[in-house]
């Protein structure tokens, strides 16, 4: 039996993660999070500010992802982002990696360096077990590019 899985989605969060842009971000991720087994990586390297809405968004995303047998991992947090994660104790809830590539690798896929620098990238593993990374255009989070794994 073959089960279709979405690629790992790597999303670089903006400098300010606040109530204003959280709604847009959630809107963009909504359909991805409602798919089966969503695997997400948030790249926090640019994040300088995060308010309670940003914290809520992280919690909401991880809740939605785990509910559907997926996960959300965090990568490359800036010093400021890390202080906020520690302050809100989210550092205990999330797996945090030094780079998006390492976070993607923890899902069993590889993200190439050039893709890791993109604001939005997805990484996937092909059916033969060879891993590759691709970038996707910003709004097309669900581009229909899904790979297959043998369940």
């Amino acid at each position, binding site marked *: 039996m073959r089960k279709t899985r979405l690629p790992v989605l790597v999303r670089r969060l903006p400098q300010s993660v606040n109530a204003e842009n959280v709604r847009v971000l959630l809107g963009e991720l909504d359909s991805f999070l409602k798919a089966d087994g969503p695997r997400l990586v948030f790249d926090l390297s640019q994040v300088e500010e995060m*308010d309670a809405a940003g914290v809520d968004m992280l919690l909401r995303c991880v809740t939605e992802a785990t509910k559907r047998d997926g996960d959300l991992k965090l990568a490359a947090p800036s010093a400021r982002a890390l202080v906020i994660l520690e*302050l809100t104790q989210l550092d205990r809830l999330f797996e945090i990696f030094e780079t998006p590539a390492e976070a993607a690798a923890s899902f069993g896929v590889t993200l190439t360096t050039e893709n890791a620098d993109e604001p939005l990238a997805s990484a996937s593993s092909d059916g033969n077990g060879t891993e590759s990374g691709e970038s996707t255009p910003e709004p097309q989070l669900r581009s229909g590019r899904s790979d297959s794994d043998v369940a």
Partner: protein
Amino acid sequence: MRTAAIIIVQDSNQSSVHDFTGAGSAPFGNRNLALLDVLGESVLNRTIARLQRYGVQPISVVSDIDLAHAPRLSWDGATADLEYTEAGELLASVERLLFEYSRQDFKALVLIQLTAYAELDYFDVLRYHRDHGRAVTTVQDAEGALPVSVFNLKQEEECAELLRSFWNGSLWHRNRPGASRYVFDGYLNRLESPYDFRRLVTDALTRRCELRPLGREVRPRVWLGDGARVDSGARILGPAYVGAHSKVRAAALLTRAASVERNCEVDCGTVIDDATVLPFSYLGPGLEVAHTLVDGGRLLHLARNLELEIQDRRLLGRLRSPSPLLRLRDRVMARVRSGASNDLFAPTDSPEPASFHTAGEIAP
């Protein structure tokens, strides 16, 4: 020996004006840390109290900060005269006061530029000054000069010149004619950075210095200020301090020399570990505040040397300053208490018993 004192409180970049009067807060690096509360009282108030204990009276505070109208500053106008002046006029004001004290037949003047916390024995300093009979006595420790000098007001003209040297720093030059040098080996914190400020708090809570928290020691090394409220489900592991009228809600934890200054609120489940929360700060529920100074929405992470401002009332925020009437009441109560005991460092009896629940786990 009749001795007066002038304390100069300088804040030329005006950051503290914004800090103590507005809703925001200036970066910690721009502040005069001697004005921030340390376990219930600022270094300024503690310096005034120390001078009074040694019989130095009157005391004038010359400042370019309007201390009398700063609602978040613990300033008791009854203990010292306050002269508020423009930053550029400070020297002229000090000079004028020096001549006034000289005319009033004071023998000596202690001049302090308030940038450090020093546990000076003023009896000893004044005796040394009298014995050496010089125009000025400077104070220094093993690491260098302290911004404290004693002027001989009998030598008025020389004092005026030495005052200008005090101002430009040349007073401490070695072999300065007319100056004797008193060597101090007591407790000193130069308050040069927020790290020093936090060290002063931990030194006081662990009794490495004479500075004592303002409040009652309800358990060994756990102090509560007047009207502090700790929920029965909260835990306080000493040494720790909760300032006057602060609230610590259920399941909160204070540990490793945590200090929560007056009029703060620590919401449910929040952990304060090796951190200081400055007055009128709100900490939202479920936070972990470690190795940090917090002032309203501003947070300085001491371990990472990183300062950030969080503009979200649900995480961190500034609580409203009390009305002028409440402040007046607090001042009156403070005066009543100080009338009962002249020692301002003595633990005070709360006029309204702190609603401290003995059921709460407070371990030494």
